[in-house]
């Protein structure tokens, strides 16, 4: 009887509610979905076991492979541009007195917008008839052709990444600022005495001391970039011609457009394995002593 009231058990009773809710909403359906990856279910008919056939098909699916590649590009894009911009901004912001709050509000504003709103704004700005390039063209400035970058296969993925980046980077700015505030002023003064340039101060004082936050931001970007869906789907649905297709949109269209539920579960399983892999890397790094 006492085991029910041991310290450990009580600690787990506190966790049980959240575990139950989360399990029921996320884990259980996901497990069911994983189980479906070994079937060829179409969502309403009979469920037939087909073994690993879905995975063999995925190997040959050129659009799935495109999606994988696009996700990798997406992650790389988000690991570079927003981080660089956010670090720069945060660093510059910590050095000014006037207008800090105003700037922070400006940078963070896009993050508060729902994805549909951000997409609506940028779709409009790039609209071939009403948008900025069209307007410039009507005034005689023919620098940018009045073509929406969401509709050209060469640029669609990058255009979508731009909109999502525009929405997201304010979050990074805010995180980095907080980290930089914790850096002791005296260190900068010491660097000033040594005659360090702005860049050197950043590299040798700021960066090392915000490392935990920086590593965290890297981890969260990688993890959040795997299921990326909203912006791609709203802006291009993965098109044109699969040029902006990512894993989550591929999964969605296989399941809900083509009724290949079993097949899409296989995609989901692979995404899941990919995630576990990334998380484990960070876990290993943590064990090795990196502060995460």
């Amino acid at each position, binding site marked *: 009887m006492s085991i029910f009231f041991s310290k450990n058990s009580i600690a787990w009773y506190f966790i049980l509610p959240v575990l139950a809710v989360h399990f029921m909403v996320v884990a259980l359906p996901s497990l069911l979905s994983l189980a479906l990856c070994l079937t*060829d279910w*179409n969502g309403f008919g009979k469920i037939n076991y087909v073994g690993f056939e879905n995975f063999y098909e995925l190997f040959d699916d050129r659009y799935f492979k495109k999606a994988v590649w696009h996700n990798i590009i997406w992650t790389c894009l988000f690991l570079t541009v927003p981080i660089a911009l956010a670090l720069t901004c945060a660093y510059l912001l910590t050095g000014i007195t006037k207008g800090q709050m105003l700037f922070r509000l400006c940078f963070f504003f896009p993050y508060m917008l729902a994805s549909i709103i951000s997409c609506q704004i940028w779709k409009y700005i790039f609209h*071939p008839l009403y948008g900025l390039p069209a307007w410039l063209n009507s005034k005689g400035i023919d620098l940018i052709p009045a*073509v929406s970058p969401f*509709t050209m*296969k060469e640029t669609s993925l990058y255009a979508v990444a731009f909109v999502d980046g525009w929405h997201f980077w304010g979050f990074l700015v805010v995180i980095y600022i907080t980290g930089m505030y914790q850096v002791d002023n005296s260190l900068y003064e010491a660097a000033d005495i040594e005659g360090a340039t702005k860049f050197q101060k950043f590299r040798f004082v700021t960066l090392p001391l915000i490392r935990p936050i920086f590593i965290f931001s890297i981890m969260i970007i990688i993890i959040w970039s795997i299921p990326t869906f909203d912006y791609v789907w709203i802006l291009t649905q993965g098109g*044109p*011609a699969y040029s902006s297709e990512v894993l989550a949109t591929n999964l969605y269209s296989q399941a809900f*457009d*083509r009724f290949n539920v079993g097949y899409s579960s296989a995609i989901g399983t692979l995404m899941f394995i990919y995630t576990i892999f990334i998380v484990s890397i960070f876990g290993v790094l943590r064990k090795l002593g990196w502060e995460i």
Partner: protein
Amino acid sequence: MVDDGYWSGSLENYYALGWDDFHAMFATRGAAMMTIGTWTFGATAAGFADSSDEWDWAPFPVLRDGGADAAYLLALGTTMSINASSGDPDAAAKVLDFIFSNKKVVLDMAADFNFGEFVVPLYFSADDIREDVSPQVKRYLVEFAEATGKGDYGYTTWTFWPADPGVHIWKDMEVVWAGDISVEDYMYDHQKMWDKARKKGELLPVGAR
């Protein structure tokens, strides 16, 4: 035709323009015609309400030799059906009977939607159609009835094709337009999907003509 800009002005414009954009263009002489189904009758008529221009429609020509004069395609925009596992199918049947019991009311309702949204499952003649229905729509009703009466109709992909080829025909077509795949490879993929659907017994039944 696409490269010359006949279609929406450019391939990219085709992707970018939406329902309201192309309706606006059509109503203001920006576009000469739209390839679209009868569900647009309402929006089109509304667009031309204030304009001195008039609109009309024509059926798609049949491209192969020896076919009928025109292609009319049946889709299923709306369906009122009795669920096979319904607890009270007789009651449901009664409701359906009631809805279609008064021909005048039904035709009135359909007229409000300019007859484009659904096919009315009742016998009626040209005289039964309300006065204020536009002449273009009236002509459609008469000619469509004639064509279907002769058995001259086909089926739309999104209603009657199995899911995979049904999506492939419009989504993967973009890949052909982008030049990323040859037409032969595309047709080969398409055939594979049909074979798979046939094997799994997923072909949809179509009623006899």
